């Protein structure tokens, strides 16, 4: 009896240790490529939302911001993840700091219902935020057109943009005053 328990422990230990070694090996082989892929995706999203290839990054109060100088003024891009109908909706938003308007909105990831909430990705929906003043009310069915049958998703995106944009602009202003 005692022997068999020792054998169980031994076999399980050997299996677990060899699995650990295999995992470590594959992690060392793939980690760099995975990080590079993630970075490439991030850069592509920032470039898309800023509409410009060159940008700089900074972290203000724990929030990662991407800034760029364009003829239209200084732009800042950031991510936000408001709660949608079925999980967080990951958005990347760019704001023109001088005009205090939204420049562009890109949906990065979401788990909304196909055919309903998933239509937040469609350009007619995200396009309506382009050039919208941050002072605007951002109320669905008033100054923002909602997706039929997906009011929750539409509201989540609309409020997410407004709230996070206000926070980022405030953060940047506070940073300037502090200097």
């Amino acid at each position, binding site marked *: 009896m005692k022997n*068999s328990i020792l*054998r*169980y422990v031994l*076999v*399980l230990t050997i*299996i*677990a240790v060899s*699995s650990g070694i*295999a*995992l470590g090996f*594959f*992690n060392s*082989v*793939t*980690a760099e*490529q*995975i990080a590079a*892929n993630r970075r490439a*995706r991030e850069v592509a999203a920032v470039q898309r939302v800023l509409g410009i290839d060159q940008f700089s990054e900074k972290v203000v109060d724990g929030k990662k911001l991407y800034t760029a100088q364009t003829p239209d003024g200084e732009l800042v891009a950031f991510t936000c993840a408001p709660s949608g109908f079925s999980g967080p909706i990951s958005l990347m938003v760019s704001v023109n700091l001088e005009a205090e308007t939204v420049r562009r909105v890109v949906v990065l990831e979401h788990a909304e*219902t*196909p*055919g*309903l909430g998933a239509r937040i990705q469609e350009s007619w929906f995200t396009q309506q935020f382009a050039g919208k003043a941050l002072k605007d009310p951002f109320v669905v069915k008033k100054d923002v057109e909602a997706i039929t049958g997906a009011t929750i998703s539409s509201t989540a995106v609309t409020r997410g943009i407004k709230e996070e944009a206000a926070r980022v602009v405030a953060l940047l202003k506070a940073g300037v005053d502090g200097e």
Partner: protein
Amino acid sequence: MNKEFIKGLWKENPTFVMLIGMCPTLAVTTAAINGVAMGLATTAVLVFANVIISSLRRVIPKAVRIPSYIVVIASLVTITDMVMAAFFPDIHKVLGLFIPLIIVNCLIMGRAEAFASKNEPKSAFWDGLGMGIGFTWALTLIGAVRELFGAGTVFGQSVFGSSYQPVILALLPPGAFITMGLIVAIFKAVELSYKRRLHHASRPVSDPGKLSVGQ
């Protein structure tokens, strides 16, 4: 081609006959391409898991076989996840959430327990490959049907044209159950009619019982 490979394709098809591994089957099949990708990822894990578990079948004591299988399968799934994230980032982005689910796919545990632990690595390899491909085509078929009705496309290619009004139900979770049920029903009907024909063919043409009634 041997019988261990063939059986998973149709006669013991994991999805349509044994009805195991339902969680990924119903969750990922919103498009044909997702079915292909999920099927192939599962096949890779299944083949390796079968071969490893079969090679270790004399080493692993019966009392600790389940934890041993889980450690082996979980490691293989994690490796698959990392390899896909590194080299197939686009597919990984779609399937990212579902790959960890392969660990609890009872298809893999089921084959480990029912086949790999009792047979040698060579048969276990063919069994895993056959079951994996059987699973892949089943998922692809369900995905294609749901995509066809839910979006009017198959593999992203438009089938019904732009005037088609998609039946969104097909893409929603209930659509998975409905599609799955209908396909299993068709599968059963085909199998039954095939068996009946076989049965008729094996009988002598002049059935003495029938003749006596007729006379």
